[in-house]
């Protein structure tokens, strides 16, 4: 499966045609899905050239994170109430022995049931 990556251009990576250079150098068919004014970009990179592309971008100072199609969880806002644990149909949320919330994002199918249930607004749809 082709993975999606969120690219954040900042610092060193600003003001350079990084993506163009990357395409020229790696010959990878990078597919730009979305871009915003703050310099964030969501791209699809073919599996075959993934490694090369990621290495190139990181070397150029681009902040690269894999974008999974799962709910975004803000640890800072969470108070470990655990309310979300009884709402998630796939069991993506659970409380550990210390009663700290554990989020297993591999289980999330982005059904959205938990999002408006979180009293601390710690859960959201991926922005991109």
């Amino acid at each position: 499966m082709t993975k999606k990556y969120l690219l954040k251009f900042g610092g060193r990576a600003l003001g350079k045609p990084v993506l163009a250079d990357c395409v020229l150098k790696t010959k990878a068919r990078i597919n730009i899905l979305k871009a915003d004014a703050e310099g964030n970009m969501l791209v699809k990179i073919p599996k075959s050239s993934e490694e090369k592309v990621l290495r190139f971008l990181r070397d150029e100072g681009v902040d690269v994170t894999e974008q999974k199609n799962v709910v975004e969880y803000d640890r800072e806002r969470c108070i470990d109430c655990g309310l979300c644990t009884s709402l998630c149909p796939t069991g993506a949320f659970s409380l550990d022995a210390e009663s700290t919330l554990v989020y297993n994002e591999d289980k999330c199918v982005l059904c959205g049931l938990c999002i408006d249930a979180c009293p601390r607004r710690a859960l959201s749809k991926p922005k991109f």
Partner: protein
Amino acid sequence: MAKTYEEINQRIHRGDAVILTAEEMIEYVRKNGVKKAAKEIDVVTTGTFGAMCSSGAWLNFGHAEPPIKFQRVWLNDVEAYTGVAAVDAYIGAAQLSETEGFEYGGAHVIEDLIRGEEVELRATSYGTDCYPRKKIKTQVTLEDLNQAWLLNPRNSYQNYTAATNSSDKTIYTYMGKLLPNYGNVTYTTASQLSPLNNDPYFETIGIGTRIFLAGTHGYIIGEGTQFNTEVPRKNGVPVGAGATLSVRANLKEADPNFLKAATFTGYGVTLFVGLGVPIPILNEKIAERTAISDADIYTHILDYSVPSRSRPVVKTVNYADLRSGRVEINGEEVRTSSVAPLKKAREVAETLKKWIEEGQFEITRPLEAFKPAELRPMRHNVHYVGDVMEKAVIVEEDADIEEISQLLINKNVNHILISREGRLEGIVTSWDVAKAVASGKKRLRDFEVRGVITAKPTETLGIVAERMRKNGISALPVVDNHNKILGIITAENIARFIDIK
């Protein structure tokens, strides 16, 4: 062997008092017995971190130049109550922002203040000779205020009911989001750690007791609102919502870690408050009570889809069941979750324990004991089905259509109940009969009577009206617990007493 408050405080000062959290006490008593616990343990600390809507803060902003007497005042667009002196105001946790609605409220203002953030103060007035100014708009921080007291009329419920939803729609409540068809169960108390569950008869807790509140020293200033000592108990603890506390602390000393604003979608804004009470182990009875565990504390799971003060009990369970993450309802496993973080409740009890161990916190003898009280409903006219229902027109199940259509006409009714020896079998409407006649049917049993939805005489009109609306019907047979027909209630009967949505 009994101890006194003074003896315990002396030990606290000497640094050799033995303090356990309520959870540690359970283990200790299990291993060593109550006798030894009463002798060795000086204080048990409790903690809770629940969503407590009945919270807020009194703020004094100081005088402006020229001065203003607030008539109305807003903090970040959340209105505060100012029906007191010129620049005093009470910001209630549950008050909603006039611009952001449910996503921002009084609780968020309080959280922003204690996090040191600037808050916009906006006030209007009619102007007087002594307070000529008519409006003001400025930015303030907690530091700029003369006084800021967290003053919560009702916190720290002794126990509380749990919630589920039998209807086929998701509902949004102060107990959280409840999925349809018993999709989940939520509950809210810190159970075995909860202050009033550990001293259920208030032998050490009363007016004047020094407590942990919002990360600083606070005080119990009285019984909380809706304080109720008349709830049936099990193992000493009320099964469901019991006693409450009214508390105060200096907001300027509060720790943002122990006050967190929250929004319950579809319900509103609330404030999570960290509150812990130290329980001095004066004697064996008190020691024994602080050793109560989740398995001994019971609550009712109520059906929150019933829009009434008296919601039906679906099941009675203990907190060990609830904490396990699953309970069984009607043969199905249903997931449970807490609205109140256990982890934070533990943090409260641990912090209080540390304060006492370090000699920073003395225990106090209450100045006055709580008085027993009973929870009364609001005084207003509530009408019950039994008062409003009318006599039903009844036929036996072997009646023929001819007889029924005569009855419908003669008695001028739209519904006829069908009985077998006084017990309800079904209901037919004039429409059913017209159709039966048109299709040449002769006997009742030749056409289907509708599956019967009923009402009980003790139900309120509001509930019954909702049931009619949901099922799209205009009358319900009224029966007793043995299905014996008592009468019939129609939408018209109800409309005379209440407005149906």
